[in-house]
């Protein structure tokens, strides 16, 4: 009996609740609840707004964190790509630089068609400070011999000092032991270009009465048989003349930057002439004639 009563109460409770809900729905649909709904909804909307803002803020923070991770990954990838491109750029610049230098050398060889040239890479620069020499990657196997002139498109570099099978050492014209018979291009006045440790050149043995215009080109004269004629040695920058001296001299600046030299041409068709035989013959003649 108690059980039955309980069941009926529960069913009544259920139906009352259902009717209450349906009543609310009908009233809401009809619009009679609108004033109450508006009043009750106002604080709820305010709370929802606050929760929304907090949720949006959290969501944005989470998105930003994810974006930061993505950006870091992208940044790493871009840095790697950049490093790769920079490496390629350096390589391409080197190729461009080599191309320019080789093109200059090629131009030079076309202006001197009578001579044979052998291109060589500079593989070593003498770091001792007392000597001005460089090493190139051509030797006896390539037909290089001692005394052969070495040039670039900008002028005379030096001459082969010694040779191995696959490399040669070049005595630069800036070395103090180097002496090149030269002449001024405009006045044809002759002298000798001597190297200096400072890297400059000195044109000496110029008669006092000769005028030396500044900026005039100094070229090889070919006298002495060590170098072929008409190779540019440098340019006159200043002159010096003392009355008590027998000769005047000029400072000459080579057009070549020896510190950045990478490619050179060995003039293989030129054979240096050894005139020491004639000097010995002169000494012998003086001895026979009773000279000093």
């Amino acid at each position, binding site marked *: 009996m108690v059980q039955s009563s309980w069941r009926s109460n529960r069913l009544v*409770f259920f139906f009352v609740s259902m009717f209450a809900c*349906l009543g*609310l729905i009908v009233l809401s649909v009809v619009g009679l609840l609108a004033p109450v709904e508006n009043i009750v909804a106002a604080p709820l909307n305010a709370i*929802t707004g606050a929760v*929304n803002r907090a*949720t*949006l803020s959290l969501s944005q923070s989470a998105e930003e964190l994810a974006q930061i991770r993505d950006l870091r990954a992208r940044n790493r990838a871009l840095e790697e790509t950049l490093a790769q491109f920079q490496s390629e750029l350096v390589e391409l610049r080197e190729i461009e630089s080599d191309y320019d230098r080789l093109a200059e050398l090629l131009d030079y060889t076309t202006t001197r068609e009578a001579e044979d040239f052998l291109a060589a890479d500079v593989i070593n620069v003498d770091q001792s400070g007392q000597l001005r020499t460089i090493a190139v990657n051509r030797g006896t196997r390539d037909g290089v011999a001692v005394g052969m002139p070495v040039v670039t498109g900008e002028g005379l570099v030096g001459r082969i000092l010694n040779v191995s099978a696959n490399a040669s050492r070049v005595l630069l014209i800036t070395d103090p032991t180097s002496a090149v018979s030269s002449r001024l291009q405009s006045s044809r006045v002759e002298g000798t270009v001597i190297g200096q440790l400072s890297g400059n050149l000195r044109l000496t043995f110029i008669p006092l009465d000769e005028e030396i215009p500044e900026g005039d080109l100094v070229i090889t004269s070919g006298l002495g048989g060590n170098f072929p004629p008409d190779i540019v040695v440098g340019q006159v920058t200043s002159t010096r003349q003392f009355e008590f001296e027998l000769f005047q001299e000029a400072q000459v600046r080579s057009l070549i930057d020896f510190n950045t030299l990478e490619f050179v041409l060995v003039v293989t068709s030129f054979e240096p002439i050894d005139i020491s035989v004639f000097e010995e013959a002169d000494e012998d003649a003086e001895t026979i004639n009773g000279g000093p």
Partner: protein
Amino acid sequence: MGRYLTVSIPILVLAATIEASFIRVFLGGPELVMLCVLAWAVNGSLEESVTWAFVGGIASDLLSAAPTGTTSLGLIILVFVISRLDRQVYRVGFFLILSLVIFATTVQFVTSSLILVLAGFRVDLLNSLSYVFVPTVGYNLVAIWPVAMILRRIQRWVRDDRVFAP
């Protein structure tokens, strides 16, 4: 009655507002109000559960375009079905809770769709099933556990307070 009504209003209002925020931000989420009512009903009395169903349903409906009482109707059916089971959730275990969640989501979906149609709203049932119902079942199955745990603690606290109150 007063004690658990006082507790139910802030909890259900908060649940309704969080639910609304989830829908706005993540375009979907668990039905927190329904889960709260379900979690309360499995351990609470029918009288308490019906109160929770009314309060929660009205709070949800006030934050949506649905007529007031739509959600309450589904929740009332749910709490009476749970009351009819007349068993404790700790005894029925894991699978019954999952079944109750699926049943509750289905009842809620069917009743709200029906009332919306009757109220003159256009409801695309096929799309609602795939884009609303199925994901919501998934969210609810996950969210029921923390919700049930929290509400169980609150329920104990309310009852203890009632027992030891002078």
